C-alpha cells in the first residue's frame, strides 16, 4: 500500500512536470536568467554605466537612455518640432527646421552615429539623418541639443547616413530613392528611371574643433537604392562601403521588381581618391539649393543660410573611385569589423551572410578581376573578394555589430533572433530569440575599433504582448542582452519612442563630465536679452510689440502689460536670469496658437503671440521652479485696434495707478 502510494505521488509529480514543460509558453520567461534583475538594477540616485543614443524613427527625434537600467533620460528634438521644449516654435529655433522647401515640422530620423577619433567614440557629437527631406543633423553632447542641420541636394530618402569615418573626417549621406539630379528637368516620365535617375552620395566634412558641417563633394552614381553604409577603419581607412539594392532599377512594385537578381551590390568608394580628384579640379560645380542651419549657444539663436552650389564627382568618368562587389539578394546592412579587415553584407532575402575581405578586394582590383561593369563602374568577381560565408545563420539578416572578442552579432528579422558568430572561422556560436522581429541592433562600441562587448540591445519592430496593452499602437520594444559570457542573456525589456533604427552605446564617463549645467548670462548675446530686471521693457514698433522680459524664482518682469491692441504681433523675449543647474523656467500664454517656451538658465527665448480677442490674457511659468511657482504669473491687457490705452508695463507696483489713488 505504502509503495503503491509513493508510486502514485511520483506519477503525479512526473505528470505535473511533463505538463509544465510541455505547456511552457513560447515567450522569454524561459530565457531570462535568475540574476537578470540585479544586472539591470541601478539603485536610486546612482548613474548608469552607459549612455544609449537611440534614433526616434518617425518621431524625428533622438532619445537618450541609460544602460543597463533602460531609463529614458532625455528626448532630444532634432527634425521634428517639440512643443514641450518650444523647439521649432520659438523664434530662435524656427530656422533650425528651414529647408529649400521652407519650414518643415517633421521628419524621420533613422540612424545615429557618435563622432570618432582614431576609430573610437570621442563623446563630442552625435549625428542623425533625416530620411524624408534629406538632411543630416549634428547634436552637441555638451548641451544635448541640435547644433546644426544641413540639407542635401540631389537626394531623396537619405538612408545610408550619417555614417562616419574614423576621425570624423566625413559624415556620408547616400540617397535611397534615386531621383533626377536637381539641376535637370524633373518633369519627365517616371518610367525613364534607368536613363534619368541618379543615386548621389554626399560627403559632409566636419570641422575638428567646432563640428561645422559642409558638403565637401558629392559622387554621382547609377540610379539604385543606396541602403546602408559603413566607413572602412584601420587597414581599410580611406574607403567607404555602401549596400545597394534595386540594381534592377525598377520604378514600380519594388517588392517584386527589385528582388529579381540573385546578387545586388556593395559599392566600395575610395574617398581618398575622391579627395585627389577634388584637388585636381575634376569635380563639376552644380547649381542647387539647400539650407544650412546652425544654432549658436551665445546668441541662443539659429540662423539658416541658403546655399547654392555643390561639387559633383562622376563615378562613370573618374576611374579607381568606385567598385561594385556583388552581394546576394538585396543587401541591407554593410558592416565593417573592428580591425577593418572584413566587410559583412546582409542580404535581406539571402540564406548566407557573405563576409568580404578588404585585402582580397584590393588584390581583385589590382588584378582587374572583373566580371564586367555597370555604368562605367567595374564589377568585381564575387568569389575573388569573398572571405567566406556564414552558413545557415537564420532568416533575413539585417545588421551586424561586433564585440571585443572577435565575434559578430547579426540581427535576423524573419527568424526573430540575434545570432553570434565568429569573424575568423564564420561558425555560429549562439542564438538568442528577440520579441519580436528585431531590426537594428547595437553593441556597446560595436562599430568602433575597440568595442566594449558588455551589452547588446535589440530594437524590435513588433511589440505585441510584451507590455500592457495600450490600444492599437504599442511603443516599440528594445531588449537588453548581457553578452559578456559565451551565451547571450536577455536581461531587460524597455519601451522606446517612435521606431528606433540604429543606436549607439557609449561609456557615461566619456560624456557626463562635459555636460553644460547652465549658460553664462554674461556671455548671452541674444539681440533681445535683458541682463537684469532694470533692463526689462516693452517697446512698440508699429504693429510689433517687443516685450523684454526676465524670469527668476519666482516672478516675471514685467508681469503686468497694458496697451496691446488687436492687430499687434507681440514678441515675448524671455531671459532666464538663473545661474544654476536644472532651473529652467517655462512661459505659456493663453490662446497662443504656438507652444510654450522652455528657457534654460542664462538663455533668452522668444514666443510670438498674435492676440485674437479683446480682454485680459494670463501668462505663467510652466516648469515648476520653487515653492512659489504657482505665484509665477502675470496679465496682459488686450484692447481694440483703435484704442488709446497707453503702452505700460510694471512689476510689483500698479502702472497705471488704480483709480482710487489718482
Amino acid at each position, binding site marked *: 500500500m505504502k509503495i503503491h502510494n509513493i508510486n502514485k505521488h511520483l506519477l503525479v509529480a512526473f505528470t505535473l512536470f511533463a505538463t509544465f514543460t510541455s505547456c511552457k509558453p513560447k515567450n522569454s520567461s524561459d530565457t531570462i536568467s535568475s540574476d537578470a534583475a540585479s544586472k539591470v538594477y541601478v539603485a536610486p540616485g546612482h548613474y548608469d554605466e552607459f549612455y544609449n543614443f537611440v534614433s526616434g524613427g518617425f518621431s524625428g527625434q533622438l532619445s537618450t537612455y541609460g544602460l543597463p537600467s533602460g531609463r529614458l533620460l532625455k528626448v532630444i528634438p532634432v527634425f521634428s518640432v517639440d512643443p514641450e521644449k518650444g523647439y521649432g516654435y520659438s523664434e530662435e529655433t524656427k530656422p533650425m527646421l528651414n529647408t529649400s522647401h521652407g519650414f518643415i515640422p517633421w521628419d524621420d530620423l533613422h540612424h545615429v552615429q557618435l563622432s570618432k577619433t582614431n576609430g573610437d567614440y570621442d563623446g563630442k557629437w552625435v549625428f542623425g539623418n533625416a530620411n524624408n527631406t534629406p538632411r543630416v543633423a549634428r547634436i552637441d553632447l555638451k548641451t544635448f541639443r541640435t547644433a546644426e542641420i544641413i540639407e542635401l541636394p540631389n537626394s531623396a530618402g537619405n538612408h545610408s547616413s550619417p555614417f562616419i569615418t574614423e576621425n570624423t573626417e566625413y559624415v556620408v549621406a547616400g540617397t535611397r530613392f534615386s531621383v533626377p539630379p536637381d539641376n535637370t528637368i524633373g518633369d519627365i516620365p517616371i518610367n525613364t528611371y534607368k536613363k534619368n535617375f541618379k543615386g548621389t552620395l554626399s560627403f559632409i566634412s566636419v570641422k575638428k574643433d567646432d563640428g561645422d558641417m559642409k558638403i565637401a563633394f558629392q559622387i554621382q552614381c547609377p540610379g539604385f537604392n543606396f541602403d546602408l553604409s559603413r566607413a572602412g577603419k584601420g587597414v581599410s581607412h580611406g574607403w567607404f562601403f555602401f549596400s545597394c539594392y534595386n540594381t534592377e532599377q525598377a520604378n514600380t512594385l519594388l517588392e517584386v521588381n527589385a528582388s529579381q537578381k540573385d546578387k545586388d551590390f556593395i559599392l566600395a568608394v575610395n574617398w581618398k581618391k575622391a579627395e585627389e580628384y577634388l584637388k585636381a579640379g575634376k569635380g563639376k560645380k552644380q547649381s542647387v539649393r539647400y539650407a544650412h542651419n546652425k544654432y549658436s549657444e551665445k546668441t541662443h539663436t539659429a540662423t539658416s543660410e541658403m546655399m547654392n552650389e555643390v561639387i559633383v564627382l562622376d563615378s562613370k568618368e573618374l576611374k579607381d573611385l568606385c567598385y561594385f562587389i556583388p552581394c546576394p539578394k538585396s543587401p541591407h546592412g554593410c558592416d565593417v569589423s573592428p580591425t577593418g579587415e572584413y566587410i559583412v553584407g546582409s542580404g535581406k532575402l539571402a540564406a548566407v551572410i557573405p563576409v568580404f575581405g578588404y585585402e582580397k578586394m584590393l588584390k581583385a582590383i589590382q588584378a582587374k578581376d572583373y566580371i564586367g561593369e555597370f555604368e562605367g563602374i567595374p564589377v568585381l568577381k564575387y568569389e575573388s573578394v569573398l572571405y567566406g560565408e556564414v552558413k545557415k545563420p537564420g532568416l533575413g539578416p539585417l545588421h551586424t555589430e561586433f564585440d571585443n572578442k572577435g565575434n559578430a552579432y547579426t540581427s535576423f528579422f524573419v527568424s526573430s533572433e540575434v545570432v553570434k558568430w565568429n569573424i575568423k572561422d564564420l561558425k555560429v556560436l549562439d542564438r538568442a530569440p528577440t520579441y519580436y522581429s528585431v531590426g537594428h541592433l547595437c553593441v556597446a562600441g560595436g562599430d568602433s575599433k575597440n568595442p566594449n562587448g558588455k551589452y547588446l540591445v535589440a530594437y524590435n519592430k513588433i511589440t505585441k504582448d510584451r507590455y500592457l496593452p495600450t490600444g492599437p499602437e504599442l511603443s516599440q520594444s528594445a531588449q537588453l542582452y548581457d553578452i559578456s559570457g559565451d551565451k547571450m542573456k536577455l536581461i531587460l525589456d524597455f519601451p522606446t519612442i517612435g521606431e528606433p533604427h540604429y543606436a549607439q552605446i557609449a561609456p557615461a564617463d566619456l560624456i557626463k563630465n562635459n555636460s553644460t549645467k547652465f549658460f553664462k548670462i554674461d556671455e548671452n548675446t541674444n539681440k533681445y536679452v535683458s541682463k*537684469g530686471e*532694470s533692463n526689462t521693457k516693452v517697446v512698440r514698433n508699429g504693429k510689433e510689440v517687443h516685450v523684454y522680459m526676465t524670469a527668476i524664482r519666482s516672478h516675471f518682469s514685467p508681469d503686468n502689460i497694458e496697451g496691446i491692441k488687436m492687430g499687434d504681433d507681440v514678441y515675448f523675449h524671455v531671459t532666464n536670469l538663473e545661474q544654476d543647474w536644472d532651473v529652467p523656467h517655462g512661459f505659456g500664454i493663453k490662446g497662443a496658437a504656438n507652444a510654450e517656451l522652455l528657457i534654460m538658465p542664462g538663455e533668452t527665448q522668444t514666443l510670438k503671440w498674435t492676440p485674437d480677442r479683446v480682454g485680459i490674457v494670463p501668462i505663467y511659468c510652466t516648469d515648476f521652479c520653487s515653492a512659489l511657482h504657482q505665484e509665477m504669473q502675470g496679465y496682459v491687457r488686450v484692447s481694440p485696434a483703435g484704442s488709446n490705452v497707453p503702452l505700460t508695463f510694471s512689476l510689483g507696483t500698479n502702472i497705471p495707478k488704480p483709480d482710487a489713488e489718482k
Partner: protein
Amino acid sequence: MAIYDWTHKIKNVAMLILCNHLFIKQFGMKKTFFTLFTLIILYACGNQNSHSSTTPDNNTSTTAENPSYDPQRGEGKFSNIQVPATIDEKLVAEGNKVFTVKCSACHKLTEEKLVGPGWKGVTGRHKAEWIMNFVTNTDAMINKDPKVQAQLEICLVRMPNQNISDDEAKNVYEFMRKNDSKK
C-alpha cells in the same frame, strides 16, 4: 540640483580616525583589529550615504549637532576678511553690474523685503566672510546655516545659486558696503 557633500564625508572619516586613535590609546593594540573593522564598516556606510544624497537634503542640522560649523563665518572659501576703512569705488561699480543681472530680481537696496530680504544694513547684520561665503556656496549654507534657515522660513524660496565667482562676491560685498554707507 544635485549636491554631493564630500566635505561632510571627509569630516566623518577624519572623526572616525580620531576616535580610532583614542581607542587604541585606551584599550591597547588588542582592540585595534576590531576598531579598524568598525571603521571600515562605518566608512563604507558613510560612503554610501554621501553617494545617494543626490537631492538637496533638508537636513536641518543645527550648530549643536555640527560643532565645527561657525555661524559667524558661514561655510566656504572666505575667512578672516579684513575690511578696509575706505570704499573702493571701482569694485562698487563692478558689484553694481553683478547686482543688476544676478541679484536685483529678488533684493531691493532698501530695507523692504521683495523675494528675499532688502539689502539695507546687510553688512551690519553679517560679517564680510559670511556674506561672501553665502553668495558663493549658497546651497551648502542653506542646508546648514541657522540664520539662513530662519530666513527661508520667512521667504520660502531657496536663494538661487547664481554661480557668483570669488571676484564677483568681493565686488558685490563692496557694493553692499557702499549701499549701507548711504544715509
